[in-house]
């Protein structure tokens, strides 16, 4: 797993229309992205595919 670089993040941001990034803000975004990757990967995966998410949606009671 490689880390996000500023260059890769600038390309990603541009692809999704983020137009106001200064060099300092791009740096902040890259830092965030790397923290998010690490945190997301550390979330335990449920063993069974039948372990559904905690929904907020349901039928009428």
């Amino acid at each position: 797993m490689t880390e996000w670089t500023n260059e890769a993040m600038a390309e990603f941001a541009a692809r999704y229309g983020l137009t106001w990034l200064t060099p300092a803000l791009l740096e902040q975004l890259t830092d965030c992205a790397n923290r998010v990757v690490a945190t997301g990967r550390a979330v335990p995966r449920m063993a069974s595919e039948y372990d559904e998410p905690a929904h907020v949606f349901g039928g009428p009671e």
Partner: protein
Amino acid sequence: MDALTLPTGTLTDLSVTAAARLIASRKLSPIDLVDAFLDRIAAVDERVKSYILVLADDARAAACVADAEIRAGRWRGPLHGIPYGVKDNYDTAGIRTCAASRVLLDRIPAFDATAIVRLRAAGAILLGKLNTWEYGTGNGGVYFDLPFEPARNPWHLDHLTGGSSTGAGASVAAGTAMFALGSDTGGSIRLPAAACGLQGIKPSYGLVSRYGILPNCYSLDAAGPLCWTAEDAATVLEALAGHDPNDPASAERPFTPYARGIGGGVAGLVVGVIRDAAIEGATIDAANAAGIEDMIRVLEAQGARIVDASLPAPFADYRRVTSVINWGESFSIHEKDFMERGAEMGFALREKMMSGFTLRAADYIAALRHRRELAAGIDALVNSVDVLVLPGALHTAPAFTDDAEVIKNFTGQSTMSVFNVSGHPAMSVCTGFDAKGLPSNGQIVGRWWDEATVLRVAHTYETATAWRARKPEIAQS
């Protein structure tokens, strides 16, 4: 900076409960009470910065109406004529609601949040919109980059209030509001309550409508009061609770009135105690550790049975799940603002939005799946006792001049978010003061929908201790 000096014996010292009795018996006019709070705001809020918008004329007009109604024998109940403040992420019709953001400075909602509607129906009088971290959220840091200066801790003006309901915490402690409404996604009611020495309750998810509160994270957000006493919190929560069809998460279930049974004591209750939440890298302050031990001693002396308990999963699991869900949902809610005006946001909000911008859907769903498991574990634990008692914030409020990590640790090294993940009612209560005079805190957690027992335990502890007799010192002006 000097601590504030609060004159004793003033109307702003009264609890909601005490003021309500005086108003009901016509010994106190809401006009005098509102004027006392507006005077206090004028005298101290330039320093405390609890409000970002004061509605003095509206409040005086509402007080005149309340006074006339009560004189005519139409007393509505214990909140009639009681002045309060609301975090500026609650929509108020025709009144700017900007959540302390440069991005929303021109935002004037067309309708009132359900909580505002309910409090108005109960006769409460809105004094103004309270300071907050931007959009009612943050990363625990304070960056002095918002259009309003941060609220100050009335116990020591150089210290944090805790967030994100910063003004809510500051106002009740400084006597600029009799009670305040906050919102709580990962501790934002309970952390300011902890820092400012208040009693603040995050109710069960779905008990209090969030409709008209600027959403932060749909599946973690809760709304509730910060008060000086547990009894006040019970009174306010009674007015707020109940089904709202405009909030998809609002529960359709009756609730037990809270204030009536609050004096029932704790004899026979089983209190599970978590002394060490095992937050990695964190050591609880001596004052906060002593506060928990004091609470245990008092509850045991009052007849509760104390049993040891521990969190069923590593603390880091709850934190990760909260972060990932929060990033993803917040970004989905505020995507347009971020994409168009993210550069105008403060550092903390922008960081959160950036995190959501880069989050993978698979990680978000994994967090939602794991959340169900974590919540079930907490539910089993809470159901094995009557309430849990554990440290809330591990530290007393840091100073603005402290190292950035120390400041962020006030939020990060707390157990509050565990009960946003699980949805259980959780209340921060004052357990004393450290050597600097800053409040310590403990957290009481109850079974789903059992706010009544949480409030009863809090009230029992509160009335057996002397902490409520101590107020911040506010210089006479």
